[in-house]
């Protein structure tokens, strides 16, 4: 296995040392008199276990503090671990194995229990904070990520990313009592400070008309009635991430990092800047409706500067007094510290009738961002200690936690979580993948358009063509693409090296891009990306009745009337099962639009197609059904006009299993 040393400018304290301000006698007290104890049962040593010969990196993504702030709990998505860190000694004092790909965490109100969402297991691990062992495993929905309890700790809210809903789990029984629809690809969640509401933010925009700017959603759940009371539209943005509610005395609004793309403009405009901007939604109560329902005003402000961008906002937190808010830029390795009083002053100048007045202003951030602190690689989750003196930031790509001194507004130290010390090619490729510094003015990283570990952003983009509205194509996933070359909708890129090397440099990043070594490692990483377990597949792997009938339709050779279907018009001809359900060629299936320069498009692989709405090369089919009910009038995209509705439903049920 190839390993690299860390040669890049990673200037962090990796020793896991105590804070520099800590006197020696305090250390003696802590260690000698047993005030600090390791969590007895769990292992505390570094985990150097490997998977398939590759080192098992930790990749911390989510953090929570115990109620008194003495322990920091760290969720590590690549190692299926939750770590406990003593916030005084900065040492890892416990680790516990949870389900596959843990992503979210919440501490029960009494501090005795942790709940950790396991995205790829579809479960929640309930962990006893004393023994630091898993007490029970609860069933959630599809792809659970965000997680919170209600104020009383009796109900658990789990955001199911792939299910597009929220599971409400009664913690007295451990059973799910209901699921509430939460829009398209919801990921993160927060309980309001008064405990009356749960907010859910969506990574991807609503699946709507492809030629319109995206609209994202914040779902509001009434915790008393346990129903969705509002679906707040956040216009023009995608990738709403973590939610923080600034205390009432400091404004009482929600801050949610977002990406604001100009995807309908030609990508060539990236070289003028202002193409992909990064900021935060400011959603604040604005009185009540006549029915007594809380109303919200949505404003948007950018965190970028005019000549430099802070890509991929991710974590958000605010201090208990509400003076400061912190937003991590995961692609820029920066945490922005916001003076909420200054932000308030700016927001007060926004006319009520123009809530989007600041949405495109690159001169706003300098008015309220007071510090840009460099973190470790790929900062994700952030939390603030209960006393407001410290903030902790999970650095996913170097297995560390940055500690921010909130009095001095500087990075005080870095906690080494004990991941593998060498850098594999795939890991280095992953670091590149999340790094926006390769792009002109830092506007985007690979992960910007391929969020959620290489997935897609659900948008259509006007890529190389300089004319507005020409050759608009839908973004494609990177998950499970090994063996599906060529790439791009026009099939012009024969391999990933071309895609990630000169093409990325010239057409996307507008910079010198990655060097050949970096391209190789990036390619290694992309090839390692896997699709999540398919929830449409039954646990025993057998097809249901409808899925089996759909499979027969997929492989049929005759129409319902018994006529022979020409081989090239059969489903499996283009979507060949042995090569990931793509023949890896370009085909004309009658889907070209008026302003497309080509008629033939790359046959997309079908694996994971259930999660990839919208469909077709320009995203005009909003559902799988529409591919055939609306956009196959001449049977060019397979012979389907003879099929009845039951057969079409069956076919789609089968496709969802791929």
């Amino acid at each position, binding site marked *: 296995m190839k390993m690299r040393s860390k040669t890049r400018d990673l200037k962090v304290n990796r020793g896991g040392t105590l804070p520099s301000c800590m006197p020696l006698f305090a250390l003696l007290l802590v260690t000698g008199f047993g005030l600090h104890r390791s969590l007895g049962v769990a292992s505390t040593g570094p985990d150097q276990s490997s998977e398939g010969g590759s080192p098992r990196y930790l990749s911390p993504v989510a953090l929570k503090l115990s109620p008194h702030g003495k322990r920091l709990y760290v969720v590590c998505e690549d190692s299926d671990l939750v770590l406990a860190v003593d916030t005084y000694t900065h040492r890892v004092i416990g680790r516990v194995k949870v389900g596959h790909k843990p992503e979210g965490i919440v501490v029960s109100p009494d501090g005795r229990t942790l709940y950790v969402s396991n995205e790829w297991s579809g479960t929640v691990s309930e962990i006893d904070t004393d023994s630091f062992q898993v007490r029970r495993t609860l069933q959630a929905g599809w792809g659970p990520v965000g997680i919170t309890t209600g104020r009383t700790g009796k109900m658990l809210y789990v955001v199911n990313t792939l299910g597009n809903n929220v599971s409400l789990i009664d913690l007295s029984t451990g059973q799910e009592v209901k*699921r509430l*629809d939460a829009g398209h690809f919801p990921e993160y969640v927060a309980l309001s400070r008064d405990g009356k509401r749960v907010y859910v933010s969506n990574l991807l925009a609503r699946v709507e008309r492809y030629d319109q700017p995206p609209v994202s959603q914040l*779902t509001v759940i009434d915790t008393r009635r346990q129903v969705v009371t*509002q679906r707040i539209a956040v216009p023009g943005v995608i990738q709403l991430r973590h939610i923080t509610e600034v205390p009432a005395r400091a404004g009482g609004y929600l801050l949610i990092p977002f990406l604001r793309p100009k995807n309908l403009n030609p990508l060539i405009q990236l070289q003028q800047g202002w193409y992909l901007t990064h900021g935060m939604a400011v959603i604040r109560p604005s009185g009540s409706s006549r029915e007594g329902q809380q109303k919200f005003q949505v404003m948007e402000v950018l965190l970028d500067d005019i000549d430099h961008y802070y890509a991929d906002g991710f974590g958000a937190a605010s201090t208990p007094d509400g003076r400061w808010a912190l937003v991590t830029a995961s692609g820029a390795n920066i945490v922005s510290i916001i003076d909420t009083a200054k932000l308030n002053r700016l927001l007060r100048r926004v006319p009520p009738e123009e809530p989007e007045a600041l949405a495109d202003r690159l001169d706003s951030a300098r008015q309220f961002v007071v510090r840009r602190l460099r973190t470790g690689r790929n900062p994700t989750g952030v939390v603030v200690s209960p006393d407001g003196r410290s903030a902790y930031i999970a650095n996913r790509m170097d297995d560390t936690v940055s500690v921010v001194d909130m009095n001095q507004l500087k990075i005080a130290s870095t906690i080494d979580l004990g991941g593998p010390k060498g850098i594999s090619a795939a890991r280095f490729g992953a670091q590149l993948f999340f790094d926006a510094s390769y792009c002109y003015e830092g506007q985007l990283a690979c992960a910007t358009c391929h969020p959620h570990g290489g997935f897609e952003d659900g948008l259509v983009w006007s890529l190389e063509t300089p004319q507005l509205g020409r050759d608009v194509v839908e973004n494609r996933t990177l998950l499970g693409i090994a063996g599906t070359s060529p790439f791009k909708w026009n099939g012009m890129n024969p391999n990933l090296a071309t895609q990630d090397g000169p093409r990325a440099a010239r057409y996307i990043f507008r910079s010198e891009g990655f060097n050949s070594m970096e391209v190789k490692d990036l390619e290694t990483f992309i090839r390692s990306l896997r699709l999540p377990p398919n929830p449409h597949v039954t646990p025993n792997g057998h097809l249901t009745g409808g899925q089996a009938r759909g499979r027969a339709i997929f492989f049929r050779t005759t129409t319902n009337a018994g006529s022979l279907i020409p081989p090239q018009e059969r489903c499996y001809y283009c979507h060949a099962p042995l090569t990931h359900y793509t023949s890896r060629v370009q085909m004309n299936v009658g889907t070209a639009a008026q302003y497309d320069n080509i008629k033939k498009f790359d046959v997309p692989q079908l694996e994971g197609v259930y999660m990839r709405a919208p469909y077709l090369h320009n995203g005009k089919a909003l559902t799988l*059904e529409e591919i055939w009910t609306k956009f196959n009038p001449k049977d060019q995209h397979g012979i389907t006009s003879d099929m009845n*509705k039951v057969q079409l439903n069956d076919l*789609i049920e089968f496709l969802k299993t791929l």
Partner: protein
Amino acid sequence: MLVSPSQPSLQGTMRTPLRLCILWSAGLLILATTRVAAQNPPLYTKWINYTKASGFPAGEVFCVTVDGNRVWAGTEHGLVLLENGRVKKVLTPADGIAGRAVMSVAVDKRTGDVWVGTFGGLSRYSAGQFKNYTNLSSGLANDLVYGVAVQGKYVWVATAAGVSRLNTDTGDWSIFNEQNAPFNEPWSYAFAVSQKKVYVGLWGGGVLVYDIAHHYWRPYTDPDGSMEIVLYRNQGLIHDIVSGIAYNPETKMFWASTYFGLSGYDGRNWHNYLTKDSGLASNFINAVKSRGNDVWACTDKGLSYLDYKTNIWVTYRPDNWRDLDSARLEKNGRGEIVITKPDGKKSKVETPTSLAHNYILNMDFQGKDIWVATAQGLSHGISQPQKEEQLYESARNRR
């Protein structure tokens, strides 16, 4: 009289100071003296009607569904929401609903979502926003949606091309029609749901009952085939043209309304009713509801009530119901209650207010009150136990 849009019209009461003309026949007298008050059939003498003057869109009210203090009414021109007796919203395709004509409404008590069957597809109304499911964009069998019901995580949809079922957890659709279930006719109209079964009323196909645990269908059809006569009174479902269906968890009976009479099935025996041998106002029935011992039949000639235990019938309708001139109906506003004893004897009560129209399409319960969808507006029947007791007491005193 002009009424402001937000003010429902209390027909009759403003003009008539609670004038109640009661024509007691011997039948009612006997009824009143032989039954204790608690067992008396309800007598709704106070009606509030919601029409165009109250803010309703013009046209028929096809359905009504009560959800606490909220009342949903499906009309020919959109979905109407009433809260605390006032029209709060009128939702049309401009607001995002799938179709103009709203045929059915079901409320998911778990999620609070409202599912709406329209002639343009299925809509989910959640947190003030619609999400639509159509034949082209989803697995819905057909866009002509007549009925909708919620059973756990499933939404059942009655369409002109069979029954569709949406799993709200997975987004998967199932279609049940003549290809995979004993459908004589795929044109489905209405649902009733119990804990273990889903009952489907089919236009021309009788009743189909789906066993949820075992995933099989059981058909109930008219033994006489499609004949419009009944050879033996209680031999089976009274007719295959089923317009509505109800399940009563207390009696464990299901009731089917047909265009040729009313049928009830208790799991062993059928109980059929025609106008010729009961107090049913008409054999042409658009919908049926049941709770306790009560069975309500929505007919083209009024709203009929059956006390299943005593076989006493009560029918409500405007007193000039034979005159379909809406202008005259509005001017009058009075109604009549016809009570039919088990022996067939009838008595009549005149009421100062009445239903908006005699053509009844649907009804629902709100506590002791009832809401009735008619061809010319929505009617709210207000329970007045003291008034009813006075009527019965008066009858006993007259004796």
